[in-house]
């Protein structure tokens, strides 16, 4: 059993129609075991009242759902315009040269994270990080934990005058 039945019941009740619970339950399953297993697909399908094949097609449509357990440390680097202009390609290439890449940690690219003011932006496990530089991100994937090494995201208002709505 991947999902907690009581919690599932409560989540289904939040929506006027059952099938809306597909994405929330898939997220819940991924939070619990790190990925979407066949068992999880079956449980979500039963709870949402849709065929398992349909849940499976939903899982493969959305890029954030994984069908395999990821490494403990995952860094996703934005490759869209502003981050590319700040050198995202070179950063990714350099990180992928590091020993342990693909086994102990993974370095992936993602599309725009809506954090262009922090280019190069990224997601480390489940938190927004940036601006990333090589030293900070290398420490992050090698040692994990201290996201501070790569300049933490924190409140987006923190980087005055970056996001404060234009304080002088």
């Amino acid at each position, binding site marked *: 059993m991947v999902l907690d039945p009581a919690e599932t019941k409560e989540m289904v009740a*939040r929506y006027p129609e059952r099938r809306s*619970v597909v*994405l929330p339950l898939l997220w819940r399953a991924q939070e619990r075991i790190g990925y979407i297993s066949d068992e999880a697909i079956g449980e979500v399908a039963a709870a949402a009242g849709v065929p398992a094949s349909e849940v499976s097609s939903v899982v493969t449509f959305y890029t954030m759902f994984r069908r395999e357990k990821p490494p403990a440390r995952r860094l996703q680097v934005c490759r869209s*315009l502003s981050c590319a202009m700040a050198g995202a390609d070179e950063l990714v290439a350099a990180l992928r040269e590091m020993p342990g890449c693909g086994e102990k940690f993974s370095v992936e690219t993602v599309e725009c994270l*809506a954090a262009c003011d922090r280019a*190069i932006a990224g997601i480390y496990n489940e*938190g927004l990080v940036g601006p990333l530089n*090589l030293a900070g991100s290398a420490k992050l994937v090698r040692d994990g934990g201290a996201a501070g090494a790569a300049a933490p*995201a924190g409140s987006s208002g923190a980087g005055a005058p970056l996001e404060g709505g234009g304080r002088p």
Partner: protein
Amino acid sequence: MIMRLLTDGIGEVDLRDIGTYRARGGYRAVENALRRMSPKEVADEVSAANLRGRGGAGFPAGRKWSFLPGDGRPRYLCVNGDESEPGSFNNRMLVEDNPHLLVEGVICSSYAIGCSFAVIYLRGEFYEGAAIMGRALEQAAEAGYVGEHILGSDYSLRIVVHRGAGAYICGEESALLESIEGKRGHPRVKPPFPAVAGLYASPTVVNTVETLCCVPSIVNNGGAWFAGIGSPKSPGTKICSISGHVRRPGNYELVMGTPLRELVEEHAGGIRDGHRLKMILPAGASSAAMTPDQLDTPLDFDAMAAAGSLLGSAGLIVCDETTCAVKVALLGESFYAHESCGKCTPCREGTKWVEKVLARLEGGQGRPEDVDLLKSLVGEIGGGKCLCPLGDFAVTYLGSALKLFEDEFVAHAHGRTCSERLQARPTASVATGEVLSA
């Protein structure tokens, strides 16, 4: 000119805390609406305000609301917080740093349209934003602003946060509805429009985060007051996200109609040292490039359209002279090729063909006929050939760049690349051997 209507207090106080938010006049709009106004009066003020949708199309919110048929079916409000346009990050700031303003806007708007179930859809990557919004909703429920019999009235409203899971296309309103219904994010055939058959085939309003955040101040101060701010045909403020080769990238809330030059040169601090402006993509990757001679264009929906581009969601990407126009096209096209949902052939196939041609141009393997090939592909993919605008978006910048910077494309088509120019950019990621080998 800066005017902090939606961003007031951000960066100064913790607006995530409902006590702080209320101490600054927060939730007064809910009290004003529910205690002193009928739903129709709230909707009338929003119509009088001429509040135009901040998601990009600039469609008047009041008119959108007026399309809902009164046939007894339940009505729904869905908040579009799928902000995914490369260059745009203003909704993320509102969600993370002023969540109660959105909750308040959702309550007032739901009351106005007669809806008792609203969904705040946030893109999956907003991990922190979803948690913040969830806490804000809990606080609002405890304070009696959300739930049964709000403020002792007959009006009840439930609000849920619904997370996406990585799909740009879900920012398109009908794909967003599919996603809330637990399906793949494929756009629907329109008509019927969401106002007639939206969520669960019921009348539905979809408005973006920033649009709904404008509603509380309209309720408090009146539509006429809002209509008097900024450009007469695009009133209010717009939070402009600016990034790229400027000294101070960030979000700046400006009165609509503020000249583009003021944003770039004053607020964003101008182009980085020693460089000069080459072009601006004013509405992110999907907009036609603007050039330095257009810096006096007012930032509002109509003026930007008249200048041949788009205000959109105001995610401005600024490029200096080291930027290769072909490389920008490739980066944009790779994005669209990746994000195409695959439903319509011109978009699904075309974005990948364009990406392939641009990749060989960029890589120095261009062919002389490639420039004409790209021009024809722009026409084959764009021009409303797909069910949603993604197909058009995918070739808008390219079409403009082929006109403005044709010489660069021609040079690439003859085997010359600009990559050495791009090497000149200041990357913070300077390799240090010890880090790599450790």
